[in-house]
């Protein structure tokens, strides 16, 4: 074979292979980005949206609101932890749950700004904070297809988004999904969202817990290694929070912050690091604190796995903040409104609870968890 022919063959198969991969990615639409931007029922006629794998809610949710600007006037922002809070149970506004995987304050702020720019009316905003809200840079999400933001919000072009999305090698799970769809027409809906943005994907686990009456996960072995928050990153998050507060004042938006009820074991390593953060937050705004070592966070029965709390806990949060929802009993130690005046006593109490928690685990050798201090 001569070299010219060899080059032509290489070029032909190179283009063929690339085209096949791009077409496969386009067809599969793993994170529902094409679905969100182009195929979505924009008139909100359906009560539920199901998707095969998981959807990029950072793109889906804003697009949904852009298409239905008059349907909602209040929004719950947060990570996937917050996604179980049922907006329909809040009676102080027409709420939509904007939660998205790994949601960070910088991203909430960008979306609020985009809504205001598009003249979407905002009456109330609830922001759920997590331990990682102060340690993960939004830059980390820029290339994560599950968490990449809506192009209208970032200002990036659609071609650059589609290049990132389609011009890449599919992962093994995508190939498996693609084969299922191509060969058997399977489209199992793992991601389910109701019309108010509530994630219903945990319902199977909810049934399991109700049936068994026991926790459905076991804590892993754990090493006590307190985490130190990076000052620069923390400062940046506070700048964003301050900007949200200023924006809400300017636009007469009711703004509520709360700390999610992070499972006690997952919370332990960041408990000390979060203390100055909570003190600083209290100095600029009141907030509800559901984190710590209270009766909810220390009981695995309240969680689907080591991070995500149950719908019931979401209802309890609504009850504590708004006094509504069907939950009758809210544990007394669950959810404290932290203000400038009580922050010191609250922090002291949390420190005390943490020490007790550590001692309890160290003593109790029969627990499923062992902690190395």
């Amino acid at each position, binding site marked *: 074979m001569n070299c010219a022919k*060899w080059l032509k063959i*290489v070029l032909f198969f190179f283009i063929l*292979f690339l085209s096949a991969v791009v077409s496969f990615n386009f067809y599969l639409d793993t994170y529902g980005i094409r679905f969100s931007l182009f195929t979505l029922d924009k008139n909100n006629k359906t009560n539920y949206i199901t998707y095969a794998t998981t959807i990029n809610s950072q793109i889906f949710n804003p697009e949904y609101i852009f298409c239905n600007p008059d349907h909602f006037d209040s929004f719950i922002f947060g990570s*996937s932890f917050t996604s179980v809070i049922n907006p329909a149970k809040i009676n102080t506004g027409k709420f939509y749950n904007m939660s998205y995987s790994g949601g960070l304050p910088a991203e909430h702020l960008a979306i609020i700004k985009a809504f205001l720019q598009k003249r979407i009316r905002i009456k109330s905003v609830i922001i759920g904070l997590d331990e990682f809200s102060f340690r993960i840079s939004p830059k980390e999400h820029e*290339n994560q297809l599950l968490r990449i933001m809506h192009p209208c919000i970032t200002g990036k072009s659609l071609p650059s988004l589609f290049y990132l999305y389609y011009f890449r090698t599919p992962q093994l799970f995508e190939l498996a999904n693609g084969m299922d769809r191509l060969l058997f027409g399977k489209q199992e809906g793992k991601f389910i969202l109701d019309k108010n943005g509530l994630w219903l994907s945990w319902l199977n686990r909810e049934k399991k817990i109700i049936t068994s009456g026991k926790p459905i996960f076991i804590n892993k072995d754990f090493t006590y*290694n307190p985490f130190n928050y990076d000052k620069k990153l923390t400062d940046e998050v506070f700048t964003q929070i301050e900007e949200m507060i200023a924006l809400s004042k300017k636009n007469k938006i009711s703004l509520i912050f709360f700390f999610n009820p992070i499972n006690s074991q997952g919370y332990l390593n960041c408990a000390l690091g979060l203390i100055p953060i909570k003190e600083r937050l209290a100095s600029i705004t009141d907030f509800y604190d559901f984190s710590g070592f209270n009766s909810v966070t220390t009981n695995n029965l309240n969680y689907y796995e080591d991070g995500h709390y149950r719908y019931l806990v979401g209802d309890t949060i609504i009850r504590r903040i708004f006094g509504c929802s069907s939950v009758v009993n809210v544990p007394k130690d669950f959810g404290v409104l932290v203000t400038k005046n009580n922050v010191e006593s609250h922090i002291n109490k949390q420190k005390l609870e943490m020490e007790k928690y550590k001692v309890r685990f160290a003593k109790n050798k029969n627990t499923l968890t062992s902690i190395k201090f």
Partner: protein
Amino acid sequence: MLSNSYSFIFIFLPLVATVYFLLHRYFAVKWPRLFLLLASLCFMSFWNVYFALVLICSVLFNYAGGSALSISTERGGRNKKLIFIAAIAANILFLGFFKYSNFFLDNVNAVFAAQIRLLNILLPIGISFYTFMQIAWLTDVYRQGGYRYDFVSYCLYVTFFPYVISGPIVYHKEIIPQLESKQAQKFNIDNLCRGIFIFSIGLFKKTAIADTLAIIANGGFNASSALSFTEAWLTSLSFTMQLYFDFSGYTDMAIGAALIFNINIPANFNSPYKSLDIREFWHRWHITFSRFLRDYIYIPLGGNRSGEIRTLINLMLTFLIGGLWHGAAWTFVFWGFLHGSALVVHRLWIKTGLHLNKVLAWLLTFNFVNITWIFFRAKSWNDALNVLKGMAGINGIFVSPNLADNHFWQELTVVGIRFGEWRDNLPETVTIVYFLCIVLIPFVLLAKNSNQLLEKFSPNWENAMAISVLMACGLLLLNQATVFLYFKF
């Protein structure tokens, strides 16, 4: 601009090659060379204009120094030694200023409890490579005289974009004659095919293999304090493989890019992990660097001509310098010390006349190299020691909880084996990625390396298909998108 970037592969490289050969066709020979020089400086400027300026200063100084030295040598001048020492000292100071100033100040601060402010210096990319290349030229001129080159050819030799950033450390006598030859002036489709062939292999090695291994290596080193036995071994082996596939992949790309311009660059790797002793390893790993150490440090120090003890000292000194060349940190020096020590031990072992079984020899060499890479990769002593502790099983040896009911494994809990997640401290990814480093071991031992494949290259259907797939995969994997599923529901 990286050689593994779309802008390089689709715009810079084809554009420069096309214009270069067109200029050769229609203009005098100096113009295409000048164009290639400018293109190389532009390539450096895409990184940072300041890097290009530093490179230009270095080239101008060395060309002036080398020319003066050459004239002085030819005339048998008394100034010859003085010029040579001044030129070499200036190069060392130049490299030292940019690369080692802060390291030096840091140590002064630590030893004398001083608080001297560190300098705000940006390390010019490729400085270690092009400084060594020019030191080699100066030394050759000093030793033998001659080697007086046309200004543009010399500048192009030092700045040629395929290797200016990360080597190989090529010698003037193997590149400049090629640049000035008539063969270099004509477009050669055979070289183009060979260039694409090895470039695609290199791109695949870098993006598909090295970058995948980097997930585990980076994640493991970032969580070094908590690594269990399995995690620590997977971390160190992943880095060992990552470094090889990354560096040799880059070198393959450099060889391929240069071949398009009809320039043959020497091979830099020859299946180093096949080595059965440490000496063989250094004959196979970063070959152009090893030969520089041999020709311009070890031999000038006296090599093996001044008695056994002096030889061993020379070996050690050579590798201490080699360690420091890799980076301004004590961990690099220690890495050099370990390799120097191994070479000393090897030399003494050879004298005993004893021979190790081949499998044992390979195991010993590979594991030594694997362990010493930990010091090469770790950001600090603590990180390195933490990984080593993990590898020694001090942080626990975990096996799958599914084995908890098995009597045999239950017995082993006495020796510290525990049931639990063996990859808790490593990044979450698909299972094959954790074991890729192990899967690759038979491959690096048994398969032909890219240089061997290039030597035997002849265009056919099989390698055309293979290269088109490797090239497409390599390009698709340049995409920085992070793909993962939110599996937890």
